[in-house]
């Protein structure tokens, strides 16, 4: 083992250019977006080579799910990506429903959309903090992450948990909306609409912010899809692509909203896209609250200890803030999943894409670029 390591070390050393300094960004580093590492070689301030190293958060969920039954594995899901767990739950629930042919009540679908959009907002609030924090503007982070608590309060009220909701499950949702919840949501939305103005003034109107983000971390538009770019990052390249529209799920096809895009492919345009999406989320949430039908919220699953799914596989995709997340499940007809596989946007964004677009950038921008790509290491390693 020792020998192997030495050889490995030597090989990497050989590859290094002589002038270049190697910088290890992470795993313990305030600028990293989680527990991972980016090893960059810099000449002066310019990156000439970047390598990501992941695996610090590998818990082998997919392996663990094989040991748990279909319901038990549901509780693991929200740990796949912590800032925004709901799309993962949604993907799993929908994959299971697809495989089993289980109908979901209309009300549950609306509640799910409400949940997903709230989660999107919450996640973007955290992103605000990360993106501006990586550029040294801590005030925004303090505001948005603090305000995010109001969304978390809503989650707590609805699901009983601030961060891990475990709410969207196969067949519908776990509990009905509590009394007066809709009003609370609307009030919170009003608050956020007011606050967004403050955020804009401080962040998007800010010359320095514009200078720091425009033209940085550019993804070429013509390569974007091929490189596996998804979500707001792809929309930031000027390509209109959103699973909510392309491959609609739940009741998104009944809702009126716009998919914002922005040409440029740099941090700035990605930030703008995200910024506009928050408005759209608020719009969707208002529509959902208005149109929510009454009725059942849960199509009961059988006794979870004896719940089997028919043989086969299913794949369900959901649009998260990081882009396309999806769950692939394979059933062999038993009470346990044969295999589950989680496809996270960061799996592509955080490794191949990051390694590609970091080259030629300034070291100072690594953190900002990672934040703008929405790199979420737990999603990569699962």
């Amino acid at each position, binding site marked *: 083992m020792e020998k192997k390591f030495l050889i490995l070390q030597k090989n990497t050393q050989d590859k290094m250019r002589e002038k270049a300094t190697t910088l290890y960004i992470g795993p*313990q580093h305030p600028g990293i977006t989680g527990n991972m590492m980016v090893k960059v070689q810099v000449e002066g301030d310019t990156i000439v080579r970047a390598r990501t190293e992941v695996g610090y*958060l590998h818990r082998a969920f997919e*392996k663990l799910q094989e040991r748990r039954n279909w319901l038990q594995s549901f509780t693991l899901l929200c740990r796949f990506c912590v800032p925004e767990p709901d799309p993962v739950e949604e993907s799993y629930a929908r994959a299971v429903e697809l495989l089993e042919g289980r109908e979901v009540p209309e009300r549950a679908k609306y509640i799910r959309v409400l949940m997903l959009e709230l989660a999107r907002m919450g996640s973007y609030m955290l992103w605000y903090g990360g993106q501006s924090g990586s550029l040294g503007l801590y005030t925004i982070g303090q505001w948005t992450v603090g305000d995010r608590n109001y969304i978390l309060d809503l989650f707590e009220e609805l699901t009983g948990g601030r961060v*891990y909701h475990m709410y969207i499950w196969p067949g519908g949702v776990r509990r009905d909306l509590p009394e007066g919840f809709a009003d609370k949501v609307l009030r919170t939305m009003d608050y956020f609409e007011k606050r967004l103005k403050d955020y804009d003034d401080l962040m998007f109107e800010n010359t320095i912010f514009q200078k720091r983000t425009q033209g940085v971390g550019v993804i070429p538009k013509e390569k974007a899809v091929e490189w596996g770019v998804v979500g707001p990052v792809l929309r930031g390249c000027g390509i209109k692509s959103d699973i909510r529209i392309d491959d609609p799920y739940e009741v998104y096809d009944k809702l009126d909203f716009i998919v914002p895009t922005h040409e440029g492919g740099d941090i700035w345009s990605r930030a703008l896209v995200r910024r506009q999406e928050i408005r759209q989320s608020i719009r969707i949430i208002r529509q959902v609250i208005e149109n929510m039908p009454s009725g059942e919220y849960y199509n009961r699953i059988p006794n979870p200890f004896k719940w089997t799914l028919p043989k086969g596989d299913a794949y369900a995709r959901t649009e998260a803030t990081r882009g396309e997340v999806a769950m692939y499940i394979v059933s062999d007809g038993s009470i346990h999943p044969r295999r589950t596989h989680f496809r996270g946007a960061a799996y592509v964004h955080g490794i191949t894409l990051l390694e590609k677009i970091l080259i030629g950038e300034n070291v100072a921008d690594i953190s900002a670029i990672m934040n703008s790509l929405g790199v979420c290491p737990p999603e990569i390693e699962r």
Partner: protein
Amino acid sequence: MVNDKNSQKIVDFIQNWARKHSIWVLAYGTGCGAIEIPPTMTSRYDAERLGVRGAATPRQADVLLITGYLTVKTLKRVIRVYEQMQDPKYVIGFGSCTINGGMYYDSYNTIKVLDKYLPVDVYINGCMPRPEAVLSGFARLQKRIAEGRANGAQQYKDNLEWYRANQKKIIPNWIMPEYNW
């Protein structure tokens, strides 16, 4: 000044009071628990009120927050980070998975029992612990510091061999500098 027992006591008291009110937390999100750290540190819960603030590097940090499960790969870094920290240093186990493996009890890649590898001062229960729980965890640590019982660094030094044996058991490729401070 006579360096007798009483004056030493007073000095200790003042030092512990200062340590208690100035807790610099290393910014290392080792696991999913890192998600409740931003809310704790930001405007709504504002841990800085209590003197808790972030520190960018281990040299400056007082507290190592093990935010949740540790994979073997991370454990290696965490040990390194812990050893770089300056005495007195404290470890807070954050979340269920630091206590007995949590939901990853059967995972091949996460450690289950944190105090086999590092001396832990306080455990905060929960998955996730809410910011309130995190703050009360800090409050408990403050109490422990004030009482002068938070001497994990000394404990680590005294039992270094035992800790090393445990650490080496699961980290096959052990390349680390000696710990001698």
